[in-house]
């Protein structure tokens, strides 16, 4: 079996999705903490938003857990990869989320730094509930896509039904 570019994409996506799942879980936990009072919204937003200046007092900021932007970038990155690999089905599955991310970032509150969350409005019950829901939905999406990538990654090995791949494989075999 050949190790194609597409297979490489799937493998990469698999790993990155694992990271995204971690991010999503962290996101959910963060908002849950916020809702149940453990955290101050300023700290919260500082951890979620990448802050340009270091906020020294918040220790967790050091561990680059400013998740939103990395998450978006990672997702964008393997979408591009799939585009290059011409995995149209996979790409079309990811397009809605990509569009959502773009929309979400365009409609963020006015702020000078990058970031999505405004500490003054985040405690609004609607926004809080929305963010929590968003976290759960993303978690579900990433979990599903994780298994999908797993399948997509193994498929070339399991069956050689794809003409391009099998040709390559055959040619490799011939050589």
């Amino acid at each position: 079996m050949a190790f194609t570019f597409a297979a490489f994409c799937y493998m990469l996506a698999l790993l990155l999705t694992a990271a995204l799942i971690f991010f999503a879980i962290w996101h959910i936990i963060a908002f849950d903490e916020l809702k149940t009072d453990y955290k101050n919204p300023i700290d919260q937003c500082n951890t979620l938003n990448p802050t340009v200046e270091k906020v020294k007092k918040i220790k967790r900021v050091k561990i680059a857990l400013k998740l939103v932007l990395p998450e978006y970038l990672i997702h964008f990155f393997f979408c591009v990869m799939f585009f290059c690999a011409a995995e149209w089905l996979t790409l079309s599955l990811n397009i809605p989320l990509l569009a959502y991310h773009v929309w979400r970032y365009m409609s963020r509150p006015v702020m000078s730094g990058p970031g999505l969350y405004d500490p003054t409005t985040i405690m609004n019950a609607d926004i809080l509930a929305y963010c929590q829901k968003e976290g759960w939905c993303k978690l579900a999406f990433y979990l599903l896509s994780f298994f999908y990538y797993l399948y997509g990654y193994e498929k070339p090995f399991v069956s050689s039904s794809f003409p391009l791949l099998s040709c390559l494989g055959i040619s490799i075999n011939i050589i």
Partner: protein
Amino acid sequence: MSAPGFTNLNSSISYSQNSTPNGGAAPPCQNGPAQTYPSMYPPAGYYGAPPQQQGYPTIPARCSPAPSKSPITNNAHSANYYHNNQQQQQQHLPQHHAPPNVAPSSYGAPPSSLPPSQPYGTTPATLPTSAAPPANAQYNPQPFQQQVPYGASGSYYGQQLYHAPPAPQQQHQQQQQQQPCLVPAPASGPGAPLYPIVSYPSAPGSSQYGTLRSSQASSTTGAVPTLMSAPLHQYSAPQPALTTAVQPGYSMAPPAQQATVNGQGSTAQTTVHQHYDQSHQASVNYDPYGGLSQSNVGADGDRPPSGTPSTSVHSSPGRHQGGDTSSSTTGSASPVPNSYDSIEGGSYPDSMPPSNDMTNQAQSYGSYGYQSMQPAYQQGPASHGDSSPSHSLYGQSSYQQYSQPFPSLSQLSAALGGLSGVPELEVEALRPVNLLQERNLLPPRPLQAPEPNLSAELKKANCSPQTFRCTLTSIPQTQALLNKARLPLGLLLHPFRDLQQLPVITSNTIVRCRSCRTYINPFVSFLDQRRWKCNLCYRVNDVPDEFMYNPVTRSYGEPHKRPEVQNSTVEFIASSDYMLRPPQPAVYLFVLDVSHNAVEAGYLKHFCESLLDNLDKLPGDSRIRVGFLTFDSTIHFYNLQEGLSQPQMLVVSDIDDVFIPSHDSLMVNLKESKELVKDLLTSLPAMFSQSRETHSALGPALQAAYKLMSPTGGRVSVFQTQLPTLGAGLLQSREDPNQRSSTKGVQHLGPATDFYKKLALDCSGQQIGVDLFLLSSQYADLASLACISKYSAGSIYYYPSFHHVHNTAQLEKFQKDLERYLTRKIGFEAVMRIRCTKGLSIHTFHGNFFVRSTDLLSLANVNPDSAFAVQMSIEDSLADSSLACFQAALLYTSSKGKRRIRVHTLCLPVVNQLSDVYAGADVQAITCLLANMAIDRSISSSLSDARDALVNAVVDSLSAYKNTVSSLQQSGLIAPASLRLFPLYVLALLKQKALRTGTSTRLDERVFAMCEFKTQPLQQLMRLVHPDLYRLDTLSDQGALHLNDMVVPQLPLVHLSAERLSRDGAFLMDCGNVFYLWIGKCCNDMFIRDVLGCPNYAAMPPNMTHIPELETPLSERVRAFLDWLQDDRAFCSTLHVIKDDASAKSTFFQHLVEDRSEAASSYYEFIQHIQQQMSK
């Protein structure tokens, strides 16, 4: 407080601390009787009542020794303080540190002194008179006395001031009458003025004043022009009894005949002070008060039914406070009636009936609040004053009915309906009104908050609607029901409002629920004497030992009569557990724009004058610090260090990286550097008069202010006159003047940059509140600038087109606002938490603050003029409870450096019928909450969205009512009577500057109007939205109020429509912070002459802003009416007399919201529009 005699030794320790305040509070009476009598009547010691009476004569003797011992006690006190902490931490192990033989020590003494009053008294040995002095002494050292903040605020309330002076006189009189041998307490005079303010000790003074007023009015009270209405009147009835009774009560010992329990109660009443009062003045003052309160006791005791000395005591504590302390009345109010109540209840009936006419007046004064706290017989006035007699009956009956001890809450609430007599109200509230037909919707008097459908006692104990109001006075059981009603559920809060009187409680342990941390309140239920059930989370808690002792009745085992359980608004003095750091001093920094624009506008001179005048009135203690910072394109600091011959100016021109040139000399102690500060303020206006610098570096100046203040926290007052053009936070002009009257969306309602928001959050974190005064004639992007105050819990003032010469109206407003601003009380490093019954949750907050968690607001500063709104949602069904409660607790540092907690509790019934929900709708509160929501919507979405949402709110609620409740299939637009004004108010909202479209509105003014909506208290907001209009020229004395020697006429409200005006009339419009007096062209010459002092209409000057003080009866009436309207508001309203032909009349006519304007429909058209929408 624990009952000393009773409890184990440890209690004595804890006790001692309490006793300190006590001793201080009313040394002569309280301590006196309690301690002395044992010695005098050793055998009688067990029965408090009789001996105590006699104890009085000895008082003086006791008083005198006190001072000498004060130092000792002082130590004792501090020692206790630490103890205290320990205790609190170890509440569960109280015995733990009880030293076995404390009694002899100074700590021990006070407790021992108290016990004598109790039959239980375990410690006769400790009673010796020697024990007594410490109690007094302890009092003296107490630095706590803090009423000042209130006092200061009080200054604005006319009454307080007025009352004050006479009080000492009366006290003297009484003392002389009653206590011949008592030292007249010379200090009372000076002390008194501050007194009326609030806390218990003060109460007696004022109360007495109140009670005696009628009887002694001729001699003493001529000076009392405006009155506190409610309480006074209510007391009017008992007065005769009092005056005559006073003496006998005192000298003889009628109380002696009472049952021991009562007897104790009576003696103990003064004890109230122990707890409550911390806040007072020099110890000397106490004497008079003590005397007074005692005298009251005596008087009360006199009443034939007796048995109620305690109740009587209450009446003494205060005009308002009566309610608080009065054990009998309040006792009934508490959800847990007990057998004592029934005993005491008997006495009341006789005193009540006479109060009719007075209650009438009282009612109109309802706005003063605290109706809820008034004793049972006072109840009526709250909002339905007319029914006072019947109310009293309720109160009475309730007593009897509940005489069995400790019924469960559910039983109680089951009985609620039948008791309260509310069904009639409800029927009235549900009466269908056809809005298309009824033209006269306005009530004759300004609308009062609807009364919740609760039993009389709960209603009485409930929080004043001025402080705490809910949009639905009947809470729907489930979210589904709420959705069906299509009405918003929310609270409107004015937590730091200036209060006439407020029980202040000092105690070792602040009793709170162990799981949800709710403060104990009048709506908890006592399962038995040792356990109480939280009304928010339903957890059963233990009653701490200390709480078993009731300072009001001075008896043990009556936790339900503690002031915390009697009053829904109380203030605790917090221990160090409630501090993250030592309480901060009062620190004020003034950041002044001195650019060319500012010099042009000329505000600086007036600011400096105003500050100079009020320098001594700035709230604060000896640690108060001030600083000044001016800026144009550079930042100027002022070194005011003590010892300098003149202020030094330090200029920092590096605005990109602001640094503080000197760290310790810029914020200086006002007391030490007062001369320098005065120098600076006098020279400041001239210093910059030649300035040609047009740039403004506001951002860097704020950063500097932040750096300067961050070590301490405090208040920053920023005066800005133009758009910031330099450095961080610079802004561009975003307003397009051509779009001002656009009917499409309005752009730029949100901030252009988050610089100010971020800075505000930093400030909030360092406990710095920033108040913004914007005096700009040009666009200054208030939408961005306001963020600095919004998120640091500051206030925002805006004076469009301010100019010190050309715009005197704004100048006057600025001066008045500034005076109020500088002298009003202030709380630092505050947080406010709102708790509510399990099942309810908080959805959104509105106001100026930073939301720290779902129910916690962080308020760097809290001021008495700002209010908050809270949207609620129902998460779980409330079916298992018949009552829903809300508790707002505001923890703050007073300007005197004391940590205090102000707790408000509101209790409302839960209903499961839609009709009940509609019956309990509070249309004013709904309107205000909707306004807040609409403003959020217009910023986050768009203005037209917000306007549509408002109209839809009306359409939805009315159609929901029509479909579900109203059984009548009438044509037309049917609304329940409770909501009949809803469309009108919403229409008025749509015509406000904040939300209107089509009419030319400057962006800054619109944004400012939005800020106002978010922070103004309900009353103020409603007057802005829908002003009250009265016809003045026809005023008559019919139905007038009689307050003291003044007659205040009562006028019916007139609809805000030009068709209701007439050319031959004079109309007064009350818009909250401004009055307009519109004089018609053909107005009666007599009115113009008598009231305005001009011969006829033509001779009137165009810009009158005052009504001359003429000696004509008509003028007196008009002025009395104006004063009366002015009485209950924080801002001093300005008056504009508007002639019909003047160009200014448009300002008057724009408030006539029922009329069609060029861009908005008339009321009738609006109603029709709604009907169309409904039929779709």
